[in-house]
Structures are given as structure tokens and as C-alpha cells.
């Protein structure tokens, strides 16, 4: 039997917003098993939520994640509105459109962020710089609408907190128009590049059966042929008032996950345009006063998958129980099957493919079980991944 070494990845790095700790068991070059440790960022928000009143909880859950910081408050207000009656019966129509605009803008910025990181891990640093460059105008749009680049504070039970000004709409549309050529460029850069195809196709495969058994969500599930999307299945906001498509791929590898995310950005651009056109005039807040006793469930398709909130009310001004399930909770666990059998140079990109707010790889160190001697550090592992791409390029006769 070959010598088995443990490769710890994580848990902390200044870049990442979700510390996770992967322990890879490696024989030779091959990953044979993986242990996943989470909890480094456990802040007890579910417990804290029980001590805040309904208005405050929206701000609290916004701080769960800085990247999908509109999904959590949205799912939470949907859960509370589920107690009051459904969203459509409670919230004014204009607010529904504004909610969808915020939700889709967030999807674009999150997918661009992932695309940049994924590019970096396989040695395409130009993709990284480009993706983050074109993410900036999206954040500017956020700043224009909400006043904040992140943590938008837009959602409240019964509506939204800020209106979109009429004079801003042409500027927003211009920004969306400018974004499309950038997306075209990424689509071409990824889908037509033989090296990226060779590097990502057939790597980190999650089969449809595995995707169902591990209950994965969002782009991770849709890339494996599982046709789920909360926006279509249980429409919220203006999702059922406009036209758009759910992107599904069959292969389940990292290439399919990349394609799903790139094509989804086009759909989001189209959704925001339609919302800006169709948005009626009127109120943006229903001014909800009391929450009756009962229990409600709110679901939102976050960039990474279904975000699930359960709220139980006893008629007071604070929730009795607030259960939060972020999509990464299900997706990260599936690495147990996706990463096993890969080579160690593919491990970084495989673990990154579910988009788990991931940059922890930079703290990787290979340690021999027997003498705890450090052989590789995190940067070496990314270099391994990038060298593999360079080697592929050389074999194919492509020069930078």
C-alpha cells in the first residue's frame, strides 16, 4: 500500500468569509478520503435571533454572509410573510419588482466573484482580474439603489426600505448594457478555450444520483441535471411576472458548473431589465404592525442555491424559533464524494466548484502523518494547480 498523507486545507485566511477546514487523505497524488470540519464561524445567530424583534432580525441575518447578503433577509421576510399570508397578498407590487432587482443584481456579482476565484485557482489570472473589474459596476448599481455596496438593508417585513428613483433607471439600464459585452467575453473565454475544457471537463463529477442523495442545491445541482430552482418552483418577488429560463446542464463536472453560472448571469441581466421596464408606480411598504402566532417557511434561490428560513411566532414581537439553512450547508458536504478520486492538483478547484466562499486553500499545508513535517504550503498547492494548466497548454502547443 502506498504511503498515506493528510493534507489539511484551512481553516482561516483573510480573504475568505466562510472558514472551513478540509482534511484530505492522499495516497500518492490521489485523494482517497476527505474529512470536512466547519463551525469556525459559528456565531449563534439562530439563538441571537430569538432575542431581537422582527424588524431587527432582518438586519441580523443580513450579516450572515457578505456575498449573498440579500438572500438571507429576503428568505426571512418571506418566512414572516408566510405567517401573515403569502408574499403576494402582503407586499405592494412595486416592492416585488424592487426585491427581484436586488436579488438578481446580487446573483450577478456573486457569480462574477466565483468566476474570478475559479480562474485564479486554475492559473487564469487574467480572468480573475477581468471578472472582478466587471463586478465593480454591479456594486456601483447597488450603491445607487440602496446606498451600500454590500449589506443593502433593503428588506423589511411587508416591503422594501428604499425606492428606485425614476432618474436612476436610465443609468442602471446603461450599466446593464455595458455588462453584456463583458459576459460575452467570459462566455467565449471559457467555452471556446481548449485548455479550460481539458482542465475542467470530467473533473470533480457529481452524478445526478449523488446530487439527489446529498440534497445539493443551486448551480451545483443544476449542473448535475437536477432541475430545481426556487424562483420557478415557488415564485417569489416578480419572478413569475417576467420571462426567463432555468439553466440546467447534465455532466456534473466543474465545466458544467461554470457554464451554468455564466449563462445564469445573462438571465439575471434580462430579468433586471424587464423589472425596470414593468415596475408599476405606487407604494413600496405595507406597514405591517403585528405578527400573529404561527409558523412560516421562506425560500429564496440564493446564488449558491435554496436559502431556507423557518420562523415560529407566538404573537409577541420576537420569534420563538428561527432556523436558518444556507445552501452551502448542503453543498459543502457533497465534497465528500466530488473530491474523492481526484488528483491533488484538481482538489483546489473541485472544492471551489460548489462556491463555498472558499479562499481557505492558501493555508494548505501537507503534513506527513508520522513526523508532522511540513512539505507544501497553500501557495504551493495553488501553484500545483496552475502548473497543471501550464503543462496542458504546452502539450497543446498554446503559448501565452
Amino acid at each position, binding site marked *: 500500500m502506498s504511503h498515506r498523507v493528510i493534507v489539511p486545507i484551512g481553516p482561516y485566511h483573510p480573504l475568505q468569509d466562510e472558514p472551513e477546514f478540509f482534511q484530505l487523505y492522499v495516497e500518492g497524488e490521489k485523494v482517497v478520503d476527505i474529512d470536512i470540519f466547519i463551525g469556525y464561524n459559528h456565531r449563534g445567530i439562530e439563538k441571537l435571533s430569538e432575542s431581537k424583534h422582527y424588524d431587527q432580525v432582518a438586519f441580523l441575518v443580513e450579516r450572515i454572509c457578505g456575498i449573498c447578503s440579500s438572500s438571507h433577509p429576503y428568505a426571512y421576510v418571506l418566512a414572516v410573510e408566510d405567517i401573515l399570508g403569502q408574499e403576494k397578498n402582503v407586499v405592494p407590487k412595486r416592492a416585488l419588482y424592487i426585491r427581484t432587482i436586488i436579488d438578481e443584481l446580487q446573483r450577478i456579482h456573486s457569480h462574477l466573484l466565483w468566476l474570478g476565484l475559479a480562474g485564479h485557482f486554475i492559473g487564469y489570472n487574467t480572468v480573475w482580474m477581468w471578472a472582478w473589474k466587471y463586478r465593480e459596476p454591479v456594486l456601483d448599481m447597488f450603491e445607487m439603489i440602496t446606498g451600500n455596496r454590500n449589506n443593502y438593508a433593503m428588506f423589511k417585513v411587508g416591503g422594501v426600505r428604499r425606492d428606485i428613483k425614476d432618474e436612476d433607471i436610465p443609468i442602471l439600464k446603461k450599466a446593464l448594457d455595458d455588462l453584456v459585452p463583458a459576459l460575452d467575453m467570459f462566455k467565449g473565454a471559457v467555452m471556446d478555450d481548449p485548455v479550460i475544457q481539458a482542465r475542467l471537463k470530467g473533473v470533480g463529477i457529481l452524478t445526478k444520483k449523488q446530487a439527489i442523495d*446529498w440534497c445539493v442545491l443551486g448551480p451545483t445541482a443544476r449542473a448535475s441535471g437536477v432541475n430545481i430552482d426556487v424562483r420557478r418552483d*415557488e415564485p417569489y418577488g416578480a419572478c413569475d411576472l417576467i420571462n426567463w429560463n432555468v439553466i440546467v446542464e447534465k455532466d456534473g463536472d466543474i465545466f458544467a458548473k461554470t457554464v451554468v453560472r455564466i449563462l445564469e448571469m445573462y438571465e439575471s441581466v434580462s430579468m433586471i431589465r424587464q423589472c425596470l421596464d414593468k415596475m408599476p408606480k405606487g407604494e413600496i411598504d405595507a406597514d405591517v404592525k403585528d405578527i400573529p402566532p404561527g409558523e412560516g*417557511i421562506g425560500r429564496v434561490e440564493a446564488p449558491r442555491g*435554496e436559502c431556507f428560513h423557518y420562523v415560529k411566532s407566538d404573537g409577541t414581537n420576537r420569534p420563538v*424559533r428561527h432556523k436558518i439553512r444556507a445552501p452551502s450547508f*448542503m453543498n459543502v*458536504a457533497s465534497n465528500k464524494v466530488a473530491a474523492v478520486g481526484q488528483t491533488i492538483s484538481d482538489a483546489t478547484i473541485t472544492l471551489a466548484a460548489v462556491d463555498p466562499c472558499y479562499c481557505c486553500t492558501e493555508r494548505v499545508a501537507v503534513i506527513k502523518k508520522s513526523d508532522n513535517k511540513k512539505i507544501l504550503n497553500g501557495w504551493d498547492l495553488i501553484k500545483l494547480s496552475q502548473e497543471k494548466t501550464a503543462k496542458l497548454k504546452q502539450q497543446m502547443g498554446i503559448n501565452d
Partner: protein
Amino acid sequence: MNVRDRIKEELGSKISYWQETNSKRIYFTIDKKDIFKTVEFMFKKLGLRFAIASGINTPSGFEILYHFSYDKAGEVYSVRVLIEEKNNPEIDSISSIFPGADWIEREMWELLGINFKGHPNLKHLLLSEDWPEGEYPLRRKNES
């Protein structure tokens, strides 16, 4: 036959309470000894997606809701189980039916102190390994 009717037909008298808070939200209560069979039926036979489970400490003991999503119709079926035991609650583990339930059972075990019988790997998930034994953050103290 729709999913509602199939659940009612299969589980029949095992369901002690059926509640639909609106057209998309269905809650029903079963006895805790039936949980394994019920989840197996809903996941394997009906092909529902397991969204999550949520536990709560009630005055008389514990309550677990297993939320299943029927994505074709956008409905959520929540199976409610009551555990009338204040100090040493336990229930059958469902993680042998599908691995996606593994983490949430570990989470409920450490936060609420519910023992999942037959769970292969019941160890800390969110809390630190040296968390004091018998301290469960989501249990309510001194409530009569």
C-alpha cells in the same frame, strides 16, 4: 394521484394531525417511532427533496420538523415529531436513508442534545471539540 393524497393513503392512521397553513405549506404530525419509515417513503418513493430539519425545545420536551420540498409544485411538506422527554430525548437517525441528513442531525445533537439512534458519526459539527458535555445552547433553561 397528487402527493398529498399519496401521503395520506400510505401513512393513514399514523398521521395524528394534518394542517395546511396555505396552499404551499403542509404540516403533519406523526409518532416518533414512525419517523424512519415516513422519511424513507417520502424521500425514496415520492422523490421529495430533503430541505432541512429544525428542532425546538418546547415546554413539554422537543419537537423536530423535517422539511421536504416538492419542487414540481413548489410545496413544502413538514413532518412534525414530538418527543415528550425533557432530559434524554432520542429518536431514530435518518442519515442511513440518504447522506444529506448527516450534518443536520449532528447539529441538532450538539445544539439541542437530541440523541439520534443509529447515526454513524455523532460528533461535534459547529461547536468546538472541547465544548463542555451536557451544555446545549438551544435548550431553554429554568422554564417551568
